[in-house]
């Protein structure tokens, strides 16, 4: 029952980092609050597995300390850390029953038989496994096996965090949402810290209260699904979350406007942001928020429409603006102008990034 | 606790290493002895316990008289083992590929039965086949010839090649073959242009097993050859029953087993990987 703190934790597989790029995981501070559901999201090679292994103790970080409830566990092996983990492929003890699978961690801890029995039955009820308690674990379907792996973490009282490493990879697509729901329900009931590690955006956003987005060995943003979508603090988040990805264009600030190529977008507030002379400056806006109007008005810019893709539920129009292709997402019901339209950048949804990091105007 | 565990672990490893290496070390030291080092009981350390001599090694390459000619059997063994292994590997690999990729049917007999037929040959005790082999080779005038032995060894080794290679082919996705055919290769071209170049690890393991069982066979060589052709194991065992001194016996034994032992160290990386695991399941 504990908060997990990473103090200056970083890892370099070769042992001797000379520059920041040598780190598989760059030194960082991060806390995992007790009882919350987190997702650790990023593409393969972003360092999320390294971070997970550092928490579970399979890797000793080359820098920094790991604290569980204030106690330094950096040098403790996995078995001593009181974590539970569900792996990508279901792990069960295949020659014993479901009951004995669930009882196993408690037997290892030498709990009295009646208490084991009580806990096993309680968890089995929660996971809808009561009927199968007496059957051999090896014969169950992949999703039931995955529930057993989860159950072995839930029976224990001493678990500081439940780590889920891409646990739905082998689950049938149509069963996935049931399991996602189960995971959320468990998090509600058990008030246990859960960390889901995944490369799947939908998985992470659906499951977690807080999503930790990683890229190239760094945490680039921590936030709720809605925050990540509506206010990406890093261009990578804008690209990685949402489909299609956020539109980005290099730009300059010029008076009270943002200048892309020769086009001026009037955004007085954004134009007040302090920009270092060497910095890479971009504006970004999501296809959902960019507006394509039929008629000109003072704050619109005329653009040619390159193509429109009808995706049933919605359409994606591609327009050309100052030499860049921008995507605009338009609901099924709303009509689209033909050939040319007028682009509007709503202030609230237009973001400014300097060296990939979001910069907000002072008053915001 | 951890220290004790490590101590026990390394002790066990060293103990077994001693058991494994013991006979070789004994043979090695014995090969440098003369009767002086033997008749008064076991001795181990040259110079200290006995005066080393190269007599044991010298006679190996001397013909007639005191000499034990080991060169001819050596060459004969090499010829027979390499030929039989090569033929088995070629025929076995082809058959294994066919069985892993196509379905064959002859009446009630299907792929699984044919595969079983190939592999089950290992069950056959040599003695059961020895009499008809003897008569058969005699009928064809192949008794006491290398060719006769090669034919017999092919029957012995092909099942091994089929066993190792079938599993190897099962681990190559069929889609690779299909892609080659879609790209314009006939099945035979597919095999030679696409599959074979990707088979090296399997071929090394299968080849090594063929060499082991071929080089080390004694019984058939013993039954089916007499004077004209003599393979190494027969030659060495013949020394055993005669009055050959221990030192030349040891030297000839070491020379005989050396090639495969060296080979094992050369192809080490192919052996200890998980290559074989699938074959046994």
């Amino acid at each position, binding site marked *: 029952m504990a908060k997990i703190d990473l103090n200056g934790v970083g890892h370099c597989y070769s042992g001797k980092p000379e520059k920041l790029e040598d780190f598989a995981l760059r030194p960082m501070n991060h806390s995992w609050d007790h009882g919350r559901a987190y997702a650790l999201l990023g593409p393969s090679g972003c360092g999320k597995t390294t971070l997970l292994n550092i928490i579970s103790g399979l890797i000793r970080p080359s820098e920094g300390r790991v604290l569980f409830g204030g106690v330094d566990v950096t040098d403790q092996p996995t078995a001593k850390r009181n974590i*539970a983990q569900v792996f990508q492929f279901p792990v069960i003890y295949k020659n014993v029953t479901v009951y004995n699978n669930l009882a196993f961690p408690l037997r*290892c801890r030498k709990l009295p038989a009646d208490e084991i029995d009580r806990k096993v039955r309680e968890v089995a009820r929660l996971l809808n496994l009561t009927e199968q308690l007496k059957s051999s674990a090896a014969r169950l379907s992949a999703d039931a096996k995955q529930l057993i792996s989860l159950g072995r973490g839930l029976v224990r009282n001493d678990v500081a965090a439940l780590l889920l490493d891409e646990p739905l990879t082998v689950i049938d697509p149509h069963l996935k949402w049931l399991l996602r729901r189960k995971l959320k329900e468990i998090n509600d009931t058990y008030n246990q810290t859960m960390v889901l590690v995944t490369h799947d955006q939908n998985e992470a956003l659906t499951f977690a209260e807080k999503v930790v987005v990683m890229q190239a060995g760094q945490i680039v943003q921590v936030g709720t699904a809605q925050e990540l979508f509506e206010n990406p603090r890093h261009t990578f988040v804008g690209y990685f979350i949402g489909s299609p990805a956020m539109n980005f264009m290099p730009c300059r600030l010029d008076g009270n406007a943002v200048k892309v190529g020769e086009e001026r977008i009037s955004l007085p507030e954004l134009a007040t942001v302090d920009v270092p002379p060497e910095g890479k400056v971009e504006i970004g806006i999501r296809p959902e928020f960019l507006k394509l109007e039929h008629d000109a008005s003072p704050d619109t810019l005329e653009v040619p429409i390159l193509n429109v893709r009808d995706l049933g539920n919605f359409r994606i129009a591609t327009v050309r603006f100052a030499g860049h292709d921008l995507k605009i997402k338009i609901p099924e019901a709303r009509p689209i102008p033909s050939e040319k339209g007028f682009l509007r950048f709503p202030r609230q949804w237009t973001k400014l990034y300097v060296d990939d990091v979001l910069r907000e105007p002072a008053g915001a | 606790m951890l220290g004790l565990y490590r101590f026990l672990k390394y002790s*066990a490893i060293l103990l077994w290493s001693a058991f494994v290496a013991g006979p070789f070390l004994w043979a090695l030291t014995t090969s440098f002895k003369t009767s002086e080092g033997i008749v008064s009981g076991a001795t181990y350390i040259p110079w200290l316990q006995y005066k080393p001599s190269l007599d044991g090694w010298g006679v190996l390459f001397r013909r007639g008289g005191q000499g034990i000619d080991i060169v001819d059997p050596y060459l004969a063994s090499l010829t027979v083992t390499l030929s039989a292994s090569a033929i088995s590997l070629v025929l076995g690999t082809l058959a294994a*590929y066919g069985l892993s990729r196509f379905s064959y049917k002859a009446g009630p007999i299907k792929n699984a039965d044919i595969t079983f037929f190939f592999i089950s040959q290992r069950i056959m005790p040599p*003695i059961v086949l020895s009499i008809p082999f003897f008569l058969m080779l005699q009928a064809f005038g192949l008794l006491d010839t290398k060719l006769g032995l090669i034919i017999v060894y092919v029957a012995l080794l*092909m*099942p091994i090649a089929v066993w190792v290679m079938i599993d190897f082919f099962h681990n190559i996705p069929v889609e690779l073959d299909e892609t080659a055919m879609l790209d314009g290769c006939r099945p035979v071209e597919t095999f030679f242009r696409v599959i074979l170049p990707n088979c090296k690890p399997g071929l090394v393991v299968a080849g090594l097993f063929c060499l082991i069982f071929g080089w080390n066979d004694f019984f058939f060589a013993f039954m089916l050859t007499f004077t004209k052709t003599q393979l190494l194991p027969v030659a060495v065992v013949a020394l055993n029953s005669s009055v050959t001194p221990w030192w030349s016996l040891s030297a000839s034994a070491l020379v005989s087993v050396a090639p495969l032992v060296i080979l094992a160290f050369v192809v080490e990386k192919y052996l200890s990987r998980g290559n074989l695991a699938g074959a046994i399941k």
Partner: protein
Amino acid sequence: MLVSRQKLIFLLPGLLVLVAIIIFPLLFTIRVSFSSWDVMYPGLDWIGGKNYSRLFSDSRFWESLQRLAGIAVGTVVIEYLLGFGLALLVWKEVRYKRFFRVLFLVPMMTTPVIMSVIWRTIFHESLGPLNNILGFLGLGQVPWLSTAGMAVVSVMMVEIWQWTPFMFLLLLAGLLSLPKEPFQAAAIDGAGPFRTFFMVTFPLMAPISIGTLIIRLIEASKIMETVYVLTSGGPGTATETSSYYIYIRGLRDFQIGYAASLSVTYLVLMILALTILAKFLVRAFISKDKA
């Protein structure tokens, strides 16, 4: 289908060669077993089942079978335990791991008869190193090859030296192919080394264990070369295995017809026994799966 002609190119050469080399001799052996072919009257006459009724009362044959069963099962079980133990030892991080892995394989690379020649000198009661070392340790002298009991032990020891590496090789390959996660899960669940072995390692290795045991049982049921060199079946008939007995009858006494009937009987019994053993092993290793 059009592939049909092409696909035969792969299978037929090997299959035909094997059928030619194996099937005809086998059928011939069966035919000979119904003849009285011997050194005096070589030829294929027909004497019906006489050879078979004779072997029924041939107690030396049945004893050799029993002995073979004992030696084969005994050595294979010991080889399995040792092989598994050794594989476990060098599976994880060990210094000079690669060297030890090959060293442990070396005996199977060597020619059994040739190494038996060396072993004979090792077992030598007065001049060999084994008794010398035992004497040095104060354990007294052992009549290795001259008493019935110890001769069997000697044969088994040489077999174990020779073939434990084969077990080791296959079991190590098996261990190396196992996924990591079950072991991590067991560590997280708090299992110690013994629990981990019995709940994770052993069950995961069950299919591989069965495979290696069967392969080795097949090979061990043919034991004869070691016997030939080490003891020649002696003292008396103490180490005479079935193969060796058939060898004596057929190729030393030249009772070809009778030896053929012994061969056929031996082969049939062996296949039966191995089939039953295989079934038994499958049940012994994965019975709980089906519970």
